[in-house]
């Protein structure tokens, strides 16, 4: 597109972000400050993720953008179109065809490969933010690997509710060293981050932090020996494709209590339907 540098950001800015990304990859899970720029979308809509994507995108890449697993929601559509126009890259909705995937709140159901990069949009990079208000102090805690406080939070949850009540943004330890916020992923997706072949990059635009998980890195969700980490999903099959393993969205369909459970990953659902799987809602 005329008047814009490739992928919107100027080359110096992209270089600065890449330098921060290299640092982030070198220290898995550690938050690296970077000079976050104003982007033509509001904070909270993925300003961090979009800058990381702009920095890693090349002319030969194929981009996929998902928002809560869906390819067709406002955030996903507008970011995908943004890069189609400013970088002229190919875009896709198929997980397998994409080389760069920018995501908000989900990891695709289909396993990622070594030649793919997944970019997460992160609102709050600091996993200890709700427990310790001082950033100076949380930095010190990261530096000294003092993470007892996070377990106090889990202890309180089990004491009050009988189980850990964190359903998204469930804290993880990366490479046995750094405590990391996995962005507001459902805890269901946490196991997918462990030993993932793809490079995982995280960008928080408002908070001006980047972090990363290199391929094949140990990512463990915090837990107690006698209260091991467990994932939860709605105990239903997808109404459209009948999947029983995927993460489901609950959709209210009328004002008489009608509801539909469907895969949150739209590409996964469509692929299954194309393969001939049919859920109860479509069979009628």
């Amino acid at each position: 597109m005329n008047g814009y540098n490739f992928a919107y950001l100027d080359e110096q800015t992209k270089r600065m972000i890449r330098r921060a990304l290299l640092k982030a990859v070198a220290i898995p899970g550690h938050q690296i400050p970077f000079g976050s720029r104003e982007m033509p979308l509001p904070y909270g809509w993925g300003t961090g993720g979009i800058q990381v994507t702009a920095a890693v995108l090349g002319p030969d890449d194929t981009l996929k953008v998902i928002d809560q697993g869906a390819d067709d929601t406002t955030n996903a559509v507008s970011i995908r179109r943004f890069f189609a126009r400013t970088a002229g890259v190919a875009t896709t909705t198929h997980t397998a065809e994409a080389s760069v995937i920018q995501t908000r709140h989900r990891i695709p159901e289909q396993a990622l490969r070594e030649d793919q990069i997944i970019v997460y949009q992160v609102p709050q990079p600091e996993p200890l933010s709700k427990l310790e208000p001082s950033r100076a102090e949380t930095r010190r805690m990261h530096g000294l690997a003092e993470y007892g406080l996070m377990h106090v939070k889990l202890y309180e949850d089990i004491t009050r509710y009988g189980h850990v009540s964190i359903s998204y943004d469930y804290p993880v330890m990366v490479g046995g060293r750094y405590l990391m916020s996995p962005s507001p992923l459902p805890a269901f997706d946490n196991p997918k981050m462990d030993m993932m072949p793809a490079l995982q990059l995280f960008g928080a635009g408002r908070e001006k932090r980047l972090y990363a998980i290199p391929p094949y890195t140990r990512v463990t969700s915090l837990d107690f020996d006698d209260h091991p980490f467990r994932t939860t999903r709605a105990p239903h099959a997808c109404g459209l494709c009948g999947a029983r393993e995927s993460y489901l969205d609950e959709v209210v369909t009328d004002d008489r209590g009608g509801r539909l459970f469907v895969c949150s990953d739209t590409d996964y659902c469509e692929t299954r339907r194309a393969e001939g799987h049919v859920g109860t809602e479509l069979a009628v």
Partner: protein
Amino acid sequence: MTQSAHDETLLSARGLNLRFGNVIALDNVDAELWPGEVLAIVGESGSGKTTLLNVLSGRMAPQSGVVWYRDAQGHLADVHAMSAPALRALHRSDWGFVHQNPRDNLRMGVTAGGNVGERLMAQGSRHYGNIRQEAIDWLAQVEIDASRVDHLPRTFSGGMLQRLQIARTLVTHPRLVFMDEPTGGLDVSVQARLLDLIRTLVRRLGIACVLVTHDLAVARLLAQRVMVMQAGRVVEAGLTDQVLDDPQHPYTQLLVSSVLSA
């Protein structure tokens, strides 16, 4: 005293000096603490008691002088030359700090059990059931009913908060505990119970203690040795009974004679 006994000191300080502008907080202070011993630092407000406690515990650096700590393996370490992680690890495990105001130390939004368990979790305990059981055991030791384990500290009375703070501090079996006016701000009957509790726990667990107090009665009840401070200097030091029954320095004499007796 023989050389070998001298070698056994848990904590020793030599020539500590610290000034805040024109105010001399510490003036060439020496101090020694043996394992299992309770040392009281007494003196009036502004005499440098709390500053000395902060310097001994590594929370504040002196302008000159050195503080040695002997760890469980017998190695001597200069507290102020230690790396920050090593010092923090020491504060989490071997040492404890009891504040005058328990709200400074406790997490008011976390249950009593979570408060007691925090140091265990910081040391790597990862078994919920064991942490909880240990917390309940410690609440019993500080005479808090086990049914309060899931209650928030804000529902506790002042004396209970102070006892909860002590449980939270002692749960990791520290070798050395620093106490800053542990009975300050409590009414007299609660003070008496708390002093009794501290004395019992310290004796039974063999914990060494540096205790700052302005209350000579507290010093007499808990401490084997006492140091009297005035304007940043140690004016008199010795066995508690000796110093309090036969004070030599005019300031100590004044302090002892000014105690009200009912």
